[in-house]
């Protein structure tokens, strides 16, 4: 406690404030220290922090829907999912425009699988629809060409839709990205958008030019719908373009054009497209970010009235989290029970013997994890060493061999063995620092051996138990390989499920959500541990 009674800052010998002078002196030192840790910092940042951030991000990221189906996502917002009816025609049209682009870019299956996580079956709807999306509006192609042969020419479309500046700037060798003209955008809004997306897609995907290709069928559908909605549209144009448009417009007005709708087309592809639930899923997961993965990871689903618990038979993750926690706890407790006496003996032996025994404790570290786990398989299986011995001793009937593997028991046994050194080492190093004179003092004060141990030795060894427990528990909670090998179905951990979603179901969002929950649970436990035991009470030596 220093009382500073003077007013101004303390000055160094050269008159600069002492603080500044000190900071300057320390700066070089700090920079050097920083340079020394920089490689590790960079390494950790690249291999640890960034992946974790990416994982956290993936668990809420849902851009794929809005990126792949931009028009549909906008159109479907006006539809009331609880109305019980299918969305209006513009939504289906928007989906047709989106899907044909997505199919060309081969993205329709991906968005299909994304939505399939939430509503199984959607994936096949998207696959089928994507395959046949460029048929939607096909009826108009022939009819348009009959009404005016100019429709056969790509140039007609270019003269209608293209921005004159784009036309003049392009050449066959170098073509900038297609630009739509303002006239077309005002007079034929849907067709302009559809044409632009087509033009840009073929430019980017196929290196084709809109000046040489006929657009795909949905553009005709859009054009028809625009002209039907606004018969005056052709007057905005001039020349051949106006004539071609006018021919179609007149025919539509006269009712001479055979029509089709996107709705019909989709229902023809698969009648499930008329199911409002499909559209509810699409609308629910249309945002760029979603809590869907997290709900899923917590056994919730999005129902009509927001989030609701899944039916009992479909809940898996809650049980799995609980089991992971309980089994990790069981493993930690058995490590304490088995490790404490060993650490005690090690700490109380002369150091030469202790070092020798320490090698035995560390021996498991020198054997491959896989070998150790497999050894447990040999030990514990029904035809394994332990069962054989028990049968031979007559303790167990031959037809009633114990099931000790591919269940929780097997996992606990194998993992206790594997994690035991992590418990013994910190306990040992803490016990080593406990002076034997404390026990003597306690006994000289009248305490029995047990009281002396329990009231004097044990409390001082608690920091070691604490450090070992936190190590073992946190290692156990994220363990993967051993539960995978000896856990069967009943003894697997949450990490096995995460691995499954990463490598088999490829639902990375869900895997990320599960991982994030695991991370939060561990941090929460750590926090609780700090509150209860106090992290200062944890000593590694």
């Amino acid at each position, binding site marked *: 406690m220093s009382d500073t009674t003077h007013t101004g800052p303390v000055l160094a010998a050269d008159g600069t404030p002492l603080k500044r002078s000190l900071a300057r002196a320390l700066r070089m030192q700090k920079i050097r220290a920083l340079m020394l840790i920089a490689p590790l910092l960079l390494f950790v940042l690249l291999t640890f922090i960034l992946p974790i951030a990416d994982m956290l991000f993936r668990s809420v990221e849902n851009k794929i829907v809005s990126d792949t189906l931009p028009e549909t996502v906008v159109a479907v917002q006006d539809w009331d999912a609880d109305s019980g009816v299918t969305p209006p025609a513009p939504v289906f049209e928007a989906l047709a425009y989106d899907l044909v682009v997505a199919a060309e870019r081969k993205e329709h299956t991906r968005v299909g699988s994304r939505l399939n996580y939430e509503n199984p079956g959607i994936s096949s709807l998207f696959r089928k629809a994507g395959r046949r999306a460029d048929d939607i509006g096909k009826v108009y192609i022939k009819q348009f060409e009959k009404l005016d042969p100019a429709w056969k020419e790509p140039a007609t479309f270019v003269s209608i839709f293209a921005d004159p500046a784009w036309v003049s700037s392009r050449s066959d060798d170098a073509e900038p990205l297609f630009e739509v003209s303002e006239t077309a955008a005002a007079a034929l809004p849907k067709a302009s958008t559809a044409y632009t997306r087509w033009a840009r897609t073929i430019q980017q995907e196929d290196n084709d030019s809109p000046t040489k290709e006929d657009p795909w069928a949905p553009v005709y559908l859009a054009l028809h719908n625009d002209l039907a909605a606004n018969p005056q549209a052709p007057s905005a144009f001039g020349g051949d373009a106006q004539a071609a448009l006018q021919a179609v417009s007149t025919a539509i007005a006269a009712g001479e054009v055979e029509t089709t709708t996107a709705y019909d087309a989709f229902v023809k592809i698969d009648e499930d497209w008329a199911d409002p639930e499909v559209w509810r899923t699409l609308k629910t997961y249309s945002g760029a970010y979603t809590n869907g993965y997290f709900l899923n990871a917590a056994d919730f689903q999005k129902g009509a009235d927001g989030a609701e618990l899944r039916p009992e038979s479909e809940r898996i993750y809650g049980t799995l989290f609980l089991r992971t926690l309980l089994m990790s706890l069981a493993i930690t407790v058995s490590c304490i029970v088995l490790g404490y006496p060993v650490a005690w003996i090690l700490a109380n032996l002369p150091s030469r013997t202790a070092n020798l025994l320490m090698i035995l404790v560390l021996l498991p570290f020198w054997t491959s994890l896989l070998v150790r786990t497999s050894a447990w398989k040999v030990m514990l299986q029904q035809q394994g060493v332990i069962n054989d011995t028990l049968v031979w001793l007559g303790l167990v009937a031959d037809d009633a061999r114990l099931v000790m593997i591919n269940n929780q028991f097997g996992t606990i046994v194998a993992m206790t063995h594997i994690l035991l050194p992590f418990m013994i080492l910190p306990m040992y190093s803490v016990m080593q620092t406990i*002076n034997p*004179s*404390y026990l*003597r*003092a*306690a*006994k*000289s*004060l*009248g*305490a*029995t*051996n047990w*009281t*002396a141990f329990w*009231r*004097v030795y044990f*409390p*001082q060894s608690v920091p070691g138990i604490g450090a070992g427990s936190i190590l073992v528990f946190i290692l156990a909670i994220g363990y993967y390989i051993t539960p995978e090998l000896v856990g069967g179905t009943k003894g697997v951990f949450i990490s096995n499920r995460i691995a499954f979603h990463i490598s088999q179901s490829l639902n990375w969002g869900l895997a990320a959500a599960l991982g994030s929950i695991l991370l939060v649970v561990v941090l929460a436990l750590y926090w609780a541990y700090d509150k209860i035991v106090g992290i200062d009470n944890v000593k590694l030596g």
Partner: protein
Amino acid sequence: MADASNTNAFVEFERVQKSYDGENLVVKDLNLTMPKGEFLTMLGPSGSGKTTCLMMLAGFETATHGDIRLDGVSINNIPPHKRGIGMVFQNYALFPHMTIAENLSFPLEVRNMGKSEREQKVKRALDMVEMGAFGGRRPAQLSGGQQQRVALARALVFEPELVLMDEPLGALDKQLREKMQFEITRLAHDLGITTVYVTHDQTEALTMSDRVAVFDDGRIQQLAPPDQLYEEPANSFVAQFIGENNTLEGTVKEINNGIALVQLDDGELIDCKPINVSKPGERTRVSIRPERVEYNKERMQEGAHTLKAEVLEFIYMGDIFRTRLRVAGNDEFIIKTRNAPDQTRLTPGQQIEIGWLPEDCRALDA
């Protein structure tokens, strides 16, 4: 408190031997009898077996041979926690996870004492060592001296009849040590406790004890009150170990009427008091305390034996002068003189004559 019928034997070691490894005897044939209320100090160089003796008494080591009796009862088979012996450890061994009050309360709790009685006793014990205000602190929050007091209070709080202390002041600085020496003796006397105190510091042993047992090589070399120990060392080890001592080597010429004539190695003949020399021809070490040597002719006493000496070094130490001389071929001969107004100061190179009384000059074993 049990009444000891024979007050002369509260603690008894009888022919006690101890070996840790089965090859070397750390304690060889220890015999010791302590009356109740005595303050006895075991003094000896490091490794001489003092702690081992204490540990055998406390019950943490078992004697390899012999009998240890407490109040007439052999305690070889009584476990430590039933011996009721208070103990103060060199490192204090205060339980770090308990507060001071809890530390003191511990021996009372294990004796199933009621809460209010416990609190009362703890308070009294803390007040006794002037630590009443520190009951709520942890040992780590106390200074070394304060921890020492608490350790003392803890060893006394359950009112043991016997208290053992193993170099309890070893970790304290000089001033604090002197203060604590005084307090420990005062407490021990006030409470009438029998105390076995271990130290390697001779000043501590001399100032505190009723009797001092000088240990060396697993044996008690001399067991005597402090003044006797200093003035009448029984052998040359004790003479060397206790206080400062001048040694001159020689051979016994003859022993007559309690006076031994010793011929020093440079040929000088001097009269000595024979302590453990018995016959002419024996080698001997003659021991003279530095403060018993006089060089001022006027002060030299009647019958003093004189020798020639050359001053090698003069050291001014404030209250005394310490002068190193060459006497009979020995360059390490020290004399101490009080800094009195009429005292002359010697200068190196000066040739002088020194003298002492024959009874201050003891012929010990070689």
